[in-house]
C-alpha cells in the first residue's frame, strides 16, 4: 500500500492534475530488455585534473516496463545501468578509469495519441553510485559520484512499418531534478573527510542550480521470429558545480540486445491470452 501511495505522489508531482482511474485488468505483460553498450566517455573533473579525459566505455542496461495491475494507463519502470570506462588524457600519458552503477524506478502515466503513438510522462526515484579514478594522482586519486533523488521522465513509443517489417521506436529522457549528492570541498582530501572525520557539508542538496543531468535513450525494436532485437543510442550527461569543483561527464554509446515480453506467473511465462495488453507494443 505504501508503494502505491508513493507512486501516486510521484505522478502528481510529475504530471499536471490528471485523474488516475483505477481499473483491474487481467493480463498485463512485462517488457524486459537486456542491452549491451559500447561507446565513448569523456570526463572532466577539476578535483582530479584540469584536463579532460576520453576513452572507451562498455556497459549493460536492463530496462523493464510493466503495466500497473490497479491503475489504468499507469506503467512502472525499472532501469538499471552499469558501465565501465578507461580513458586517456589528450597528451596520451595519463589514464583515468570510470565506473558507474545507476538504478531508477518509478511510474509513468500514458496518453495514447493515436494507435501508433503513445506518450508517457512520470517520475523515477533512484540514483547513481560510482566514481572516477585517476591512477597517477597521489592524495586526490578518486572522486566519488553519489547522487540520489527524483527524476522527471518521459517516453515516446512510436510504431511504424517499413515494408512488412514492424518496428517500434522508443525514446526516453530522464531528467534528475532534485536529490542529495556527495562532494568534498574545493581543496579537501578524502583523508580529512573519512580519517579525521570532517564531513560537514559533503552531502548537499542537488538540483538544477548546481547540477544538470540528462539521460537519453533512442532505440528501435525489430521482431525476428520469436526474438525481438533492440538497437539504439544512449547518452548520459552530467554537469555539476559543487563547492566550486566542476565536473562534466558525457557518455555516448550504441547498444544492442534483445527484448522479452510476456505474462509471468510464479516465475513461469504464460502464453498470451485474449485481452493481452503490452506496456510498449
Amino acid at each position: 500500500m505504501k508503494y502505491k501511495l508513493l507512486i501516486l505522489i510521484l505522478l502528481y508531482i510529475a504530471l499536471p492534475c490528471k485523474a488516475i482511474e483505477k481499473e483491474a485488468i487481467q493480463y498485463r505483460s512485462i517488457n524486459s530488455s537486456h542491452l549491451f553498450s559500447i561507446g565513448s566517455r569523456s570526463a572532466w573533473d577539476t578535483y582530479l585534473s584540469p584536463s579532460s579525459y576520453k576513452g572507451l566505455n562498455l556497459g549493460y542496461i536492463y530496462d523493464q516496463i510493466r503495466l500497473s495491475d490497479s491503475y489504468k494507463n499507469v506503467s512502472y519502470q525499472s532501469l538499471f545501468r552499469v558501465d565501465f570506462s578507461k580513458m586517456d588524457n589528450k597528451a596520451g600519458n595519463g589514464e583515468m578509469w570510470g565506473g558507474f552503477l545507476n538504478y531508477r524506478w518509478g511510474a509513468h502515466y500514458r496518453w495514447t495519441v493515436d494507435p501508433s503513438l503513445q506518450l508517457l510522462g512520470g517520475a523515477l526515484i533512484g540514483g547513481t553510485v560510482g566514481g572516477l579514478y585517476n591512477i597517477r594522482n597521489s592524495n586526490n586519486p578518486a572522486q566519488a559520484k553519489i547522487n540520489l533523488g527524483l527524476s522527471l521522465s518521459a517516453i515516446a513509443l512510436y510504431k511504424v512499418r517499413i515494408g512488412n517489417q514492424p518496428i517500434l521506436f522508443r525514446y526516453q529522457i530522464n531528467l534528475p531534478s532534485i536529490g542529495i549528492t556527495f562532494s568534498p570541498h574545493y581543496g579537501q582530501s578524502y583523508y580529512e573527510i573519512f580519517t579525521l572525520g570532517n564531513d560537514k557539508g559533503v552531502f548537499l542538496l542537488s538540483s538544477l542550480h548546481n547540477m544538470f543531468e540528462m539521460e537519453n535513450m533512442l532505440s528501435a525494436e525489430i521482431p525476428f521470429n520469436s526474438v525481438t532485437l533492440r538497437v539504439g543510442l544512449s547518452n548520459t550527461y552530467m554537469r555539476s558545480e559543487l563547492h566550486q569543483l566542476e565536473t562534466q561527464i558525457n557518455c555516448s554509446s550504441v547498444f544492442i540486445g534483445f527484448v522479452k515480453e510476456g505474462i509471468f506467473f510464479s516465475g513461469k511465462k504464460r502464453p498470451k491470452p485474449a485481452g493481452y495488453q503490452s506496456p510498449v507494443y
Partner: protein
Amino acid sequence: MKEFRFSSSISLLLFSLMLLSCDKEDEFNNTPSGNMEALWQIIDEHYCFLESKKINWDSVHAAFMPRAKNVSTQESLLNLMDEMLDILQDGHVNVSTSFNIARYWEWFEAYPENFDEKIQKNYLKTDYYISGGIKYTILDDNIGYIYYSSFENETGENSMDHILYRLALCRGIIFDIRNNGGGELTNVQNIAASFTDSKVLTGYISHKTGKGHSDFSKPYPKYLYPRTSSTYNYYKQVVVLTNRNCFSAANEFVNTMMQLPNVTIVGDKTGGGSGFPFSSELPNGWGVRFSSSLSLSPKMEQIEFGISPDIQVSMTKEDEDKGLDTIIETAREYINNQYLK
C-alpha cells in the same frame, strides 16, 4: 500501424543527442605558453600557502609568462617551470616528466645532514630486529633504539606491539626518524598512539574552499587517540631524533609526538612540509604536485618551514671520527639523566 515517416520529432531528438555529445574543451593549449599558463593557474587557484608566504603570484605571472614564448625545448620549459616554482620554497611542489622532476630541495640540501648510515651501524650492529619497516635494538645502557626510515613503510598495531614488548623494560626509547622524507599519515597515528594513554590535541587542518588565496575552511582539530586494542603501550621517556631531512609525514610525526609529556625532540630542525599534497597535470600531461591543505600546530602556528627541537644538537666531526653519533649520544645522556632523577 502507420507507414514509416521520418518525422520531424525524431530528427529533433537525434539532434539533441548530438548536441549532448559535445565534450569539455581544455582551457589551455599544449604549447610552452599554454603549459606555463596552466601551471601558474593551478598554483594560483589551489596552492594553500600563497597568502601565508606573502607571495605576489600576479607579479610572478608578469615575470615568467613573457619568457615562455622563447622556450624551444621540453627541458628548457621544465627549467623555466622549476625556476617559477622555486619561489614557493615548498618540497611538496613538483613537476614530473619522463626525463626529470622539477623540485625544491633546499630545505635539506642547504643544511648539515646530521645522519650517517655507517655510524648508525655501530649502534644497530647486525642483530637488530625488523618489524613493519622499523629496525630496532637495545643499546648497551638498556635504552631501546628504533629507526624508522619512511612513513611509506606500513606499520600497524601488531608491529608496534612486538616492538614495545621487546623494549618494555628499557629505561627509555630513542625513536630515530632522521632522513625520513614522509609517507602515509595513517602510520603517524598508528605509531604515535602507542605513546599516549589519553586523547591529545595535535593540531588543526584547514583546506582551501575556493580559488581565492585566502579562501580557507575553519581549522578542524586533529586528535591523537590512544590505542584501544593494543597489548603494549609505552609511557616512559621517549626521545625523537630529527634532522633537516624529516619532511611531510615525518614533520607531522614530530608535531604529534611533541604534544606528549614524555617525549623530547633532539637533533636539528625538521624540514617542514605541512601542506597536504594534491596532484594535477598540465596540457602536455606532465604531473604537478602542490600543497592543498595546511596543517597547523595546536597553537595554530605554521609548521610548513619545520619544527625546532627541544634540544638542538648537530653531529660533530670529532664524534664522527670516533664512530659516534652525537645526536644519539645526546639522547642517551638525556634518557639516563632522566632515569636517574
